[in-house]
């Protein structure tokens, strides 16, 4: 469909869907779901390697199940609760991707989380880590709340992209504050229309993706919405359509909302007079 390419830092993509690789039943389902979503960017996390017994079998590595010529890997710093740990995770991820010659070595999805219950981003830690990582040469995509002031601050700290949340990670509650997301987009793109804004987290179903795209987001990042669906492959296909629908609707320009009706059929030549005066 639309071949409108967009840029995120030094990267250029056509697909506007970023898909996470967590929580799939197995690698086959993951691969099929990623293919159905038509995404070009997939996120991964770093964790301690499994040190299997000698002679025993080690679990498959996720990179062996991803076509690294097709997907750009976006490493995240999920699970980090301080700026320092997030910076460590980013450096480790870069080292891993440099070993695989994947362009994803250049960037990182920064998450500095505040607590385990909400997984909300810690604003101060996010700003600190953004500055450190930008100085270290990373292109930083920073996960943040839907607060327009924070979004602005993170952009000022040097982030390549700001990723406001639709709702809490994994909650499936969709875009809870569309007005804030719209303001975030407005603020971030003010005087810089190509600055990429990617809505991250909270997507429960396809319409949530469409809403984010209609608001003018450049892309949507999701994981559980696909991986947790009863049929992840069908849901992935739905998400691909939803991204297209939302993007096209945004480009088309929606009608303004109004409180009362406006007849879509002609009001002249009626065969009966108007029933009641208003």
């Amino acid at each position: 469909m639309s071949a409108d390419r967009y840029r995120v830092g030094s990267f250029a993509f056509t697909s506007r869907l970023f898909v996470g690789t967590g929580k799939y039943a197995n690698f086959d389902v993951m691969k099929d779901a990623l293919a159905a979503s038509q995404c070009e960017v997939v996120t991964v996390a770093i964790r301690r390697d499994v040190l299997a017994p000698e002679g025993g079998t080690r679990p498959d590595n996720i990179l062996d199940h991803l076509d690294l010529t097709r997907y750009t890997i976006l490493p995240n710093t999920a699970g980090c609760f301080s700026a320092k740990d997030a910076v460590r995770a980013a450096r480790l991820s870069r080292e891993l991707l440099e070993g695989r010659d994947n362009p994803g070595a250049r960037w990182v999805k920064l998450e500095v989380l505040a607590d385990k219950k909400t997984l909300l981003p810690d604003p101060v830690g996010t700003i600190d880590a953004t500055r450190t990582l930008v100085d270290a040469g990373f292109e930083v995509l920073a996960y943040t709340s839907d607060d327009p002031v924070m979004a602005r601050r993170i952009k000022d700290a040097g982030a390549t992209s700001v990723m406001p949340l639709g709702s809490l990670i994994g909650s499936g509650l969709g875009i809870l504050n569309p007005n804030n997301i719209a303001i975030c987009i407005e603020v971030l793109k003010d005087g810089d229309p190509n600055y990429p804004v990617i809505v991250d987290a909270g997507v429960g179903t396809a319409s949530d993706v469409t809403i984010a795209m209609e608001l003018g987001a450049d892309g949507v990042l999701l994981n559980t919405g696909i991986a947790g669906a009863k049929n992840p492959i069908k849901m992935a296909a739905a998400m691909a359509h939803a991204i297209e629908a939302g993007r096209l609707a945004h480009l088309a320009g929606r009608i303004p909302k109004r409180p009362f009706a406006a007849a879509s059929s002609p009001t002249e030549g009626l065969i009966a007079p108007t029933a009641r005066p208003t």
Partner: protein
Amino acid sequence: MTARDATPAPTDRLRPAARLSPRRAVADPASFQWPRACCLLFLFCETKPPNPPGAIKNAVCVKKTNPIEPKSTGGRQGRTARLSVIGGRPYPRCTARNRLYNPSENVVFLTGSIVKITINGKTETADGAATLADLLNRLRLEPKRVAVEINEDLVPRARFPETTIRDGDRIEIVTFVGGG
């Protein structure tokens, strides 16, 4: 110039360090004397070999158990302590003479002192002369597929062969997993 600047470092503080370095003993298997070395075959010998004084320190023959193996699988555990050692070099001569250990793989000849390290939060024992590359090899991890931190500092892959393990090192070995 202050008095402190003029004072040379006290020599008695240098000497112990100088004494320490020759302790990195017999690396050359040809000159290795089997009976003397095995006096330090501590922890595993059912019959203790003759124990001449002044035996070569740190030339230790130990059974290599799997460092990651769960404790419950140890067959010999009741009678002899098990020592998990990462690193060291196979020393076939030691193996052939010792009735306790048949596969030569299971015996290592340590060229350094034994150090305690932490790998991914778990305490392990390693040969102090081992490098990070040795350690990954021992754990059967491909260097390209892991990233390593020692004491929270990233170790670039190119430096694995020259990075030695020190006592108390906290080592993190990470890889990618699915995530959003």
